[in-house]
């Protein structure tokens, strides 16, 4: 009996093709002829836009396909096992022990009705055959290793009692439990906010080094990949367009798709200069705004909810853009809704062009309603699926401007043209449009009312990187033409850097930093803002483009 020689590669995919059967019954290929390998102890990053097949590849590495899809060509060898040909039993035997995976969504990939400790114990007991006592000890060590505070107490909690970052660590701990030779991380950070993201990436890097295991990390975040992985593979619509050493690929990308990805990820240029606040009349002014969501109704009053917004002061000049940034749950959307009139502030004043708008839209006058428009995050849900795209724009045109149907149609066609939307789209229904087109229709709907103020709440976060740019530049063009002021809510610092003259940073419903964009970015006053920017700084060492926070040039005359 000879010992199995250590494989030359951890995994090797040769012309791997995977397809799934779509609703119409046709086979659609999601991975096409992918040839890729990883040497023992190597680290590979897989990048690409959403839907490019990254997760499909990750699952395939564990011999798992989502229901409806199947291998239709090529070969995949993982740790010496043929993942396509081997029987289910031997593949199952490898899972958890030789290869492990942490799934894309840590928030839902733990069983919600089971204590987190037990979920890690389960792996040790059922996969590594440990006794409960042994497993208990290993579990606690693992928790310490992944940096979870007070492991004994924490292991007795349920998943919902942990923060997102902690949950992600538990998932990683469960994946590490049996000390696999290869670990696959599918977007380990996309559900987390920037500060936690950095910690998790640190952790992954450290453990990988300690344990000497091979790592595949999937991400659409190029900075994260460049930080952790020595090699990178770029997927575009299931096709591997480029592979190589990370530094090299990112330094001089060969494929146009890679270039586009890189460009989308890096803000360039300088923040737009603020006009003189003293001379320009402010369009929107908030003073001591306060808001709390009503406590859940009932007979016995629940513990009063923490206010979602407190003491919010800012002002926005005509034609300018105010960036609103902050961690998840900090109150950005709430602020946007108050400005738009979907919520009424419970305290403070909000004035628009001198008039008080600190009330629900239904109590604002028609002109105020017309002059303030909003564009939402999810482009599809922001359009009525039962109305044509033209109708979506015609209705507000007639409603606000009282024009005839014919005039409204003409205005719509004109707007479509200005937004670069083909005329053919007028008669289509929203579902027949791409995400970027939908979002531009939504922008058209807002602009047909000839607004003076536009609230944009994460209007690009649901879109692919390449499309984001189109939408943002469309918006910039039309802002330029119409002189509209914009409240830009986003978690994308690059967007704020490029488009906003003023910025406010929210944390737990308070403004912790405010001022001209360049000032705030360079000299954040609060810890929260610093953490926010620190997470953004990560890419700076490896990414080709200079990070805005490190430009030392004076922007304000």
């Amino acid at each position, binding site marked *: 009996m000879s010992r199995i020689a250590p494989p030359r590669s951890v995994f090797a995919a040769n012309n791997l093709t995977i397809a799934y059967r779509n609703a119409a019954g046709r086979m659609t290929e999601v991975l096409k002829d992918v040839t890729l390998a990883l040497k023992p102890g190597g680290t590979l990053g897989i990048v690409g836009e959403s839907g490019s097949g990254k997760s499909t590849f990750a*699952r395939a590495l*564990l011999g*798992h396909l989502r*229901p409806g899809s199947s291998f239709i060509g090529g070969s995949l060898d993982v740790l010496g096992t043929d993942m396509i040909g081997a029987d289910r039993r031997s593949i*199952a*035997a*490898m*899972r*958890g*022990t030789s290869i*492990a*995976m942490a*799934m894309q*969504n840590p928030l*839902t*990939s*733990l*069983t*919600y*009705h*089971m204590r987190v400790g037990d979920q890690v114990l*389960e*792996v040790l007991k*059922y*996969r590594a055959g440990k006794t409960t006592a042994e497993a208990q000890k290993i579990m606690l060590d693992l928790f310490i290793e992944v940096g979870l505070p007070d492991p004994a107490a924490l292991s007795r909690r*349920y998943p*919902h*009692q942990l923060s997102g970052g902690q949950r992600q660590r538990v*998932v990683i701990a*469960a*994946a590490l439990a049996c000390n696999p030779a290869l670990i696959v991380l599918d977007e380990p950070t996309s559900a987390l906010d920037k500060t936690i993201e950095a910690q998790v990436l640190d952790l992954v890097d450290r453990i990988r080094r300690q344990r000497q295991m091979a790592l595949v990390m999937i991400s659409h975040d190029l900075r994260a990949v460049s930080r952790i992985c020595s090699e990178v593979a770029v997927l575009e619509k299931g096709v591997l367009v480029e592979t190589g050493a990370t530094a090299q690929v990112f330094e001089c990308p060969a494929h146009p798709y890679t270039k586009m990805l890189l460009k989308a990820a890096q803000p360039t240029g300088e923040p737009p200069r603020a006009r003189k606040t003293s001379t320009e009349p402010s369009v929107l002014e908030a003073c001591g705004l306060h808001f709390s969501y009503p406590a859940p109704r*009932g*007979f*016995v009053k*629940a513990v009063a909810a923490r206010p979602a917004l407190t003491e919010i002061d800012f002002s926005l000049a005509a034609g300018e853009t105010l960036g609103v940034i902050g961690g998840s749950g900090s109150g950005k959307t709430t602020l946007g809704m108050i400005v738009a009139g979907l919520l009424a502030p419970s305290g403070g004043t909000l004035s628009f062009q001198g008039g008080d708008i600190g009330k629900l839209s239904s109590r604002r006058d028609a002109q105020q309603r017309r002059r303030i428009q909003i564009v939402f995050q999810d482009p599809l849900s922001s359009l009525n699926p039962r109305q044509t795209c033209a109708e979506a724009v015609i209705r507000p045109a007639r409603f606000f401007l009282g024009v005839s149907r014919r005039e409204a149609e003409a205005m719509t066609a004109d707007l479509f043209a200005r937004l670069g939307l083909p005329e053919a789209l007028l008669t289509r229904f929203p579902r027949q449009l791409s995400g970027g087109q939908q979002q531009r229709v939504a922008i058209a709907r807002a602009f047909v009312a000839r607004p003076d103020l536009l609230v944009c709440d994460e209007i690009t976060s649901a879109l692919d990187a390449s499309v984001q740019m189109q939408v943002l530049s469309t918006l910039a063009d039309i802002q330029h033409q119409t002189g509209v002021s914009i409240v830009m809510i986003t978690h994308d610092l690059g967007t704020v850097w490029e488009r906003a003259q003023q910025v406010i940073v929210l944390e737990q419903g308070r403004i912790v930093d405010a001022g001209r964009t360049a000032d705030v970015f360079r000299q954040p006053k609060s810890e929260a803002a610093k953490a926010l920017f620190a997470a953004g700084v990560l890419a700076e060492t490896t990414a080709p483009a200079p990070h805005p926070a490190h430009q030392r040039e004076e922007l304000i005359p």
Partner: protein
Amino acid sequence: MFAIKLLRRLAVAALTLFLLMGYIFIATEILPGDALDLTMTADEMAAMPPDALAQKKHELGLDRPAIERFAGFVLHVARLDFGRTLITRAPVADIVWMPFRNSLLLAAATLMVAIPLALFVGCVAALFHNRWPDHLISVAVIFGYSVPEFVIGTVLVLLFAVTWPLFPATVTANTNDPALKLLAAAPLPVATVVIGSVAYLARVLRAGMIEALSSDFVERLRLTGIPEYRIVLRHALPAAVGPALTASALYAAALVSGIVVVELVFAYPGIGQQMVRGVSTREIPIIQAIAILSALAVVATNLAADLALYLLDPRRR
């Protein structure tokens, strides 16, 4: 926190019951026609001298204002006193109480059989999702809840009491018999209600299981190589039972309706018999009492389901 939630939930249940009494009161006492119209024909009323009519109204308490009567009604019901019948002036509580117990018994026995069976069927269907056992079960389930109870009951009697005399065809047990004796006398009624209930519960459970089995945490477990039986029993099932519980609680009212029909088919001494008798004699107080008691049972079931949900789903605690 749990105590507060519990209290709040109890308060909601109490409010529901109060509103329910209002609803039942309005439905029966304020709508056109009062107790007087119901016991007499129009000719009789027309022929009655006005003072006799007034006297009669006074006897039945119909001359007091509606609010006052409602208050009286609520106070009495709170003491489980449902008044007296219109015709024989017998206490309604005496007439309704034991039949109500018997119907509860039938419901409890049904659920005791139906729930484990539904769990099993639902799990099998979900595990074989989109394969033949699932298709078979789905079709059977649709038949199960589409065929009315009175048809199922008749077929069961024909098969298992007449053709093969295995079980009694009609329930001979008495209203006041001890619980076990009653149930022993009623295998076919139980089976009839079970068939419809299993169909419904299995359907709900199957949906829940399919959702649970396609959830992220199940995929993670599969990718970790945890044995399938453990995934199903320890992870997916508790997650599927939650939504099934909520849906089943909604089913409680339908269950009562089914039981009423089955009781009549088998002469089971439950509220069904009293209800039909009550309707045909226009004995509103009897129907009121039955409606309130069974609504009470439904509200209690909902409460129990919610509590079970609190226990099953830590996120709600």
